[in-house]
C-alpha cells in the first residue's frame, strides 16, 4: 500500500530537488519576459515572504494565529520611521525593521505561547489590534490614518537606485525572499524544525520525551515575526509608503487564507498560495469590481471542502494517482 508510506521522511530527506528551483526560474522569466507584470510580481514576492514566515509557525509549529500582520506592519512602520528619521539606506532599514519585529515577536510570543487553541487565537488578535491602534493614534510618528508617504529610500549598497518600473524593487525583494526561503528551508529540515513539527503533531508527547516545547515554540515564533517584519520593510521600501493596511486584521486573515490555499506545512504552499490568490484577485477585481471577494470566497470553500492540504496537497494526490495507475 504505497499511500501508507511517508512520501518524504525527515530522517532520509534528500538534498535540493530540481523542482525547488522552479519558483526562482519563474520569477526570472517574469522579470525578463513580462516587464508589465514586474511591479505586481514584486508585490507577490513580498507577500510570499510573509506567507513563508507564517508557514514556519502555522504549518510546522501548529500555532494558529490571526495576528501575524502585527509583525508585518511593525516591520513596515519600523522601516518607514527608520528611513524618515535615521537614513534612507535600504539594507540598514531592513535590518532595523527585522530586529524590531523579532524583539516584538519575542516579547509577545512569550505571553501568547503560554496559551493554546482559541485563547491563543484571541491573544494574537488582540496584539494585532493594539499595534493597529498605536499606528492609528501615534500620528506624529506613524502619520496616523494618512500613513507615511514619500518615504526616502536610497540606492541599495549605494549603487542600485529604485526605478519607476519596479525592476530594482523586484530583484531586491527576490533576493531577500531567497535568503528567507533558504533560512526557513534549512530550519524545517533541521533537528529543530523536525522537533517543531513534533510539537505540532503532539506537544504532550514532545514534552514526555524531554523537549522544552514552550522554548522551542518561542524561538520559532520570534524568527517568524522577524521574517514577517522583513517582508513588511520590503513593502515600505519598494512602495515608499506605509499605511494602516499593513497592520490590519484583514491582512492577517488574508495571509492565512493564502497559506491555506497554497497548502500549509509544505514550504512551497507559501509560494503558490499568494501567487494564485493575488492573480485571482487581480483578475476577478477587473471582471467584477463589486463582487470579486465572492469569487475568492468560493475558491476557498472549494479548497477547504475538496482539497485539504491546499493546491499543493491536491497536486500531490494527483501525482500519486498518476503513479498508482502507471504501476
Amino acid at each position: 500500500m504505497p499511500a501508507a508510506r511517508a512520501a518524504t521522511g525527515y530522517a532520509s530527506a534528500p538534498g535540493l530537488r530540481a523542482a525547488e528551483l522552479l519558483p526562482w526560474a519563474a520569477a526570472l522569466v517574469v522579470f525578463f519576459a513580462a516587464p508589465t507584470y514586474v511591479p505586481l510580481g514584486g508585490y507577490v514576492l513580498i507577500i510570499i515572504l510573509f506567507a513563508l514566515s507564517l508557514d514556519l509557525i502555522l504549518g510546522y509549529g501548529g500555532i494558529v494565529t490571526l495576528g501575524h500582520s502585527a509583525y508585518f506592519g511593525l516591520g513596515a512602520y519600523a522601516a518607514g520611521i527608520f528611513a524618515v528619521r535615521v537614513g534612507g539606506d535600504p539594507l540598514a532599514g531592513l535590518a532595523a525593521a527585522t530586529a524590531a519585529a523579532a524583539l516584538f515577536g519575542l516579547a509577545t510570543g512569550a505571553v501568547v505561547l503560554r496559551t493554546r487553541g482559541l485563547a491563543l487565537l484571541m491573544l494574537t488578535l488582540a496584539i494585532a489590534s493594539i499595534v493597529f491602534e498605536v499606528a492609528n493614534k501615534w500620528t506624529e510618528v506613524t502619520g496616523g490614518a494618512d500613513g507615511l508617504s514619500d518615504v526616502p529610500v536610497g540606492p541599495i549598497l549605494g549603487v542600485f537606485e529604485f526605478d519607476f518600473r519596479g525592476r530594482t524593487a523586484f530583484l531586491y525583494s527576490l533576493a531577500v525572499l531567497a535568503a528567507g526561503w533558504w533560512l526557513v528551508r534549512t530550519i524545517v529540515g533541521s533537528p529543530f524544525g523536525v522537533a517543531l513539527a513534533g510539537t505540532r503533531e503532539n506537544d504532550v508527547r514532545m514534552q514526555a520525551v524531554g523537549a522544552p516545547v514552550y522554548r522551542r515554540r518561542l524561538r520559532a515564533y520570534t524568527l517568524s515575526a522577524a521574517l514577517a517584519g522583513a517582508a513588511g520593510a520590503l513593502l515600505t521600501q519598494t512602495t515608499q509608503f506605509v499605511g494602516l493596511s499593513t497592520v490590519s486584521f484583514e491582512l492577517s486573515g488574508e495571509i492565512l487564507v493564502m497559506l491555506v490555499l497554497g497548502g500549509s506545512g509544505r514550504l512551497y504552499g507559501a509560494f503558490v498560495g499568494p501567487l494564485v490568490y493575488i492573480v485571482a484577485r487581480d483578475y476577478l477585481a477587473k471582471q467584477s469590481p463589486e463582487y470579486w471577494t465572492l469569487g475568492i470566497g468560493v475558491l476557498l470553500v472549494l479548497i477547504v471542502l475538496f482539497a485539504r492540504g491546499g493546491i499543493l496537497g491536491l497536486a500531490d494526490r494527483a501525482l500519486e494517482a498518476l503513479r498508482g495507475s502507471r504501476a
Partner: protein
Amino acid sequence: MNARLETRGLHKNFGSLQVTQDVSLRFDSGRRYAVIGPNGAGKTTLFNLLTGELRPTEGRVWLDALDLTALAPDARARAGIGRSFQRSNLFADLSVRDSLAIAVAVRRRVAHVFWRRFGSYRLLAERAEELAAQIGLADELALLVRHLSYGSQRQLEVGLALACEPKVLLLDEPTSGMSPEETAAMQALIAGLPRELTVVVIEHDMDVVFGFAETVVVLDYGRVLAEGSPEAIRASGAVRERYLGHPDDGAAPAGGHGR
C-alpha cells in the same frame, strides 16, 4: 538498596475529589513493578504525578537525590523518566522512523540544531532503527504512524519512551485492547528490557502482571491498599475481594501488606 524513584505522602485533589491519598512508594533500581487496581483507583493519576503532567496537592517525588516535584514533564523526562500513555499519544502524520528519530534527537541534545539537516545525523536514524528492532517494528519504519495497526502503535508508545533512554520506565496499560498475539509480543518486549532499567507497569491483565512483576502495588480509592510480591498479593484476601474478583470471606484482610 539504591532507591530510584520515590514518592512521599503524595496527595492529589481535583476540587473535593481526592484522587490520590497519601501515597508513599519506592521503586528500586532495576526492579519490575506492576500497579494494579480497579478503574478510578488513581493509577494513571499516580503516573501523571510521577511524570509531571500533574502537580501534587501535597507530597514530593524524588528521583535518586533529585527532587522532581516542581519540575515540568520535559525536565523530568530529561532527568530519566520515560513514559508511555494509556491511549496512544503519537505523531500520527510522521513515519515510525521519524517519530523515533525525533525522540532520539531530543535525548541526544541535538533538537535545538537548526543549521544542519536532520537527515545528516546518521546516528539518529541508526538509533531509530535499533529501537524499531527492539520493539518489533523493524519492518514498519517507513509507515506513517496513523497507518500502523493498533498493536504496533502500542509498541511504538513503548519505543518512544525507550528512546529517552530512561532510568525509570512507566508503562500505562501497554496491553490494553490487544489481541492475545499482540499481548504476547508486548510481554516479550517487557521481558527483554535491560535489567538495570526500573520498570513500572499499570496493567489489568493478571496473567501479564504475574508474568513479569517482582513487586505488585495495589491502589484503591487513591490509596495504596497493598504492596508485595505477586504471591503475597494473590494470597491477600483484601486484594482479592476488592479487585481480583474472587471474594473470599475467609481470608484475613490484613494479609495485604505481606512482604
